């Protein structure tokens, strides 16, 4: 009476128990996934998935920041756009007045004085526009800590030549403001000097107004050129913002593919595991009971 492998009641029991425990462990794992909603709870669940998850999270954070940076840049550029538009209207009015003064050379000193006074007030208005602030900073003042880009009385530039830039993408940085001299011309011959000269010449030397008009046209062209540049940058930053927002969406989808459970599949798995566990329980209860003891009397 010898068999290759003796089986005892205890070993049967131990084996059944270890089987049940494996089943229950799997059931627990699926239940944990379902209740946390996460497929990767710790790095060892999937080291490669962990890399993807960590990278995606980092990139999501970076791109959300790029979106915020771009919004801020759009604020600067939008402010520059409206300011330059208003400046152009004022410059055109100055041009009209200078033209009027030049063409009516025979007109009286009083009428030209009236023209000069309007030009003076337009110059003040232009200076005010040049000192437009965004979030407490003059937008044409470079990186100055002061409140104005141009001195409101003398009209001299008070800012510096540094540029304000915003990072709106990986290695993509866009300048979101121009310095005063870039927009209004170099110190000494800038827009405010030209307009001041026009007022002066209207009062004292109408004959020189023709030359001033040329200088004013040059300034206006410069402002126009900056305006179109501002528009171009605005649309570029806007496009980058959209790209960053889209990227965040893509990355979140990717992250959830890696990290989150597939709900229908997991619920299905849970059902199957439950059935398997119940089957194992049923089989165990049937297998263990009978022994020779039951049949002896």
């Amino acid at each position, binding site marked *: 009476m010898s068999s290759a492998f003796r089986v005892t009641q205890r070993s049967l029991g*131990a084996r059944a128990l270890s089987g049940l425990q494996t089943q229950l462990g799997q059931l627990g794992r699926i239940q944990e996934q379902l209740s946390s909603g996460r497929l990767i709870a710790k790095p060892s*669940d999937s080291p490669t998935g962990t890399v993807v998850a*960590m990278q995606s999270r980092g990139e999501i954070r970076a791109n959300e*920041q790029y979106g*915020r940076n771009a919004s801020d840049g759009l604020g600067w550029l939008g402010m520059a756009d409206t300011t330059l538009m208003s400046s152009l209207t004022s410059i055109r009015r100055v041009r009209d007045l200078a033209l009027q003064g030049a063409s009516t050379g025979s007109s009286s000193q009083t009428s030209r004085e009236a023209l000069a006074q309007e030009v003076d007030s337009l110059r003040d208005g232009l200076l005010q526009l040049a000192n437009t602030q965004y979030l407490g900073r003059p937008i044409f003042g470079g*990186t100055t*800590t002061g409140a104005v880009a141009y001195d409101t009385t003398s009209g001299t530039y008070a800012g510096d030549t*540094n540029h304000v830039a915003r990072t709106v993408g990986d290695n993509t940085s866009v300048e979101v403001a121009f310095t005063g001299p870039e927009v209004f011309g170099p110190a000494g011959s800038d827009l405010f000097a030209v307009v001041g000269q026009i007022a002066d010449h209207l009062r004292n030397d109408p004959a020189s107004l023709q030359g001033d008009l040329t200088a004013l046209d040059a300034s206006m062209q410069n402002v126009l050129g900056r305006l179109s540049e501002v528009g171009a940058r605005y649309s570029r930053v806007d496009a980058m913002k959209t790209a960053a927002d889209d990227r965040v969406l893509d990355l979140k989808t990717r992250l959830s593919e890696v990290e989150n459970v597939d709900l229908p599949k997991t619920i299905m798995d849970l059902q199957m595991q439950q059935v398997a566990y119940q089957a194992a329980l049923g089989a165990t209860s049937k297998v263990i009971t009978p022994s*020779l003891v039951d049949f*002896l009397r």
Partner: protein
Amino acid sequence: MSTFSGLSIALSSLYAQRRGLDVTGQNVANANTDGYSRQRVLLESVGGPQTPAMWSTWSGAGSGVRAADVERIRDMFLEQRAQAEHGEQSRLDTQQTTFSRLEQLFDEPGDLGLAQAFGDFWNSWHDLANAPGDMAARKQVLQRASAVTDTLNGAYTQVATEWSGARDQLSALAHEVNATAASVAQLNGTIAAAVQSGVPANELMDKRDQLVMRLSDLVGATSRSGDSGTVDVYLGGTSLVRGNIYDTLNVTGPSDFQSLGSGSVSLEWATGAFKAETPSGQAGGLLTTLNDTLPRYVSRLDEVTNALVTQVNTAHAAGYDLNGAAGQPLFDPAGTTAQNVRVVLFDASLVAASGTPSLDGSGNPVGNLDGSNADLLGKIATQTGSPDKVYRAMIVDLGVESQGVTRRAEVQASVVGQADADRESQSGVNLDEEMVNMLAFQRAYEAAARLMSTVDSTLETLINMAR
């Protein structure tokens, strides 16, 4: 040949079958006892006189049966294999626990770990680049920097606590090993005395083997059969228990994590004070945890910290603060370990956001609202060798290593299950078999009784004949 020898043969059978029934009873009673090995009565036929002598007559029928011994059925080789596998499993389980603790400690991937703290820190630089003059943005940078250092310090403290826990566990383990070894030695002595005087000591041996198995679990001990039913227990090649003599183990080496650099923790023999070999068992796992795993991950964390401190400080020094002065160290340059890292800049206006120096009319430096240096600091995250990347590599390595250990532990668990099943199939009690044996002894007993009554009636016939 004696007239009554038939009676004595029947009597010897009655005794022997009764002994068989007793052993069967013992087996059935211990069907579920841990560590019990089934026993079997060895019956032996008793023959006639072995040497011919004058006046000695013998019918040649033999003179009955006797229960020579009660044998304990246990295979020493299966036992040794199970000891080795149990030791290995304990080692892997201990290591697995360490790794799962480490994984819990770093809490990745998630929204609460160090990766998140780094991300928040870099983003605060971007926010500062957007508003270099804003004191709130400046303070936010400093607070996020503190959050990073707090996370690093916290991780270090937790690892150090984990280390102390493992160290305490090792001390407790050494005590248990010493007590268990003493018990084994004592049992060995008792067993030897019993065996030498011919008394069965099966139950004592079961108890002793259980203790030896416990030693395998604890320190990966292996055993060899010794004289007179004793067992010698070995660690590596050195004997822990030999007969009734045993040696003890002491834990040596640093007692806290900070002083680990001065040497490693090990188990030492009390006699001779040389290192005990414990490649497996819980002790093996704990020693790996203490001397390798935990220090290794702390040094990985130090690499992350070093990258953070040097890269941020270098970039910060290249910038200019709100007063136009060059950036001072943001992190303590001396604290490049996870334990010591700390923020040393507390004045928010000293955060060097600007990338260009400015001078006032008289040539003195003044601050400006340039944010280009803050922008550069925010971009450290994407540089090669950035702290984020070093940390990510560390987490991935942790994941891979942990997964490896978990898998090996799972495989080992099934190996141990197989080894235990083999032992059980050798030594376990099968109730069916015991029932069959019981029937056999019962029938034999009945037959012997029958024989006795037959001999009795035969003798009666003989005695009545003379009436």
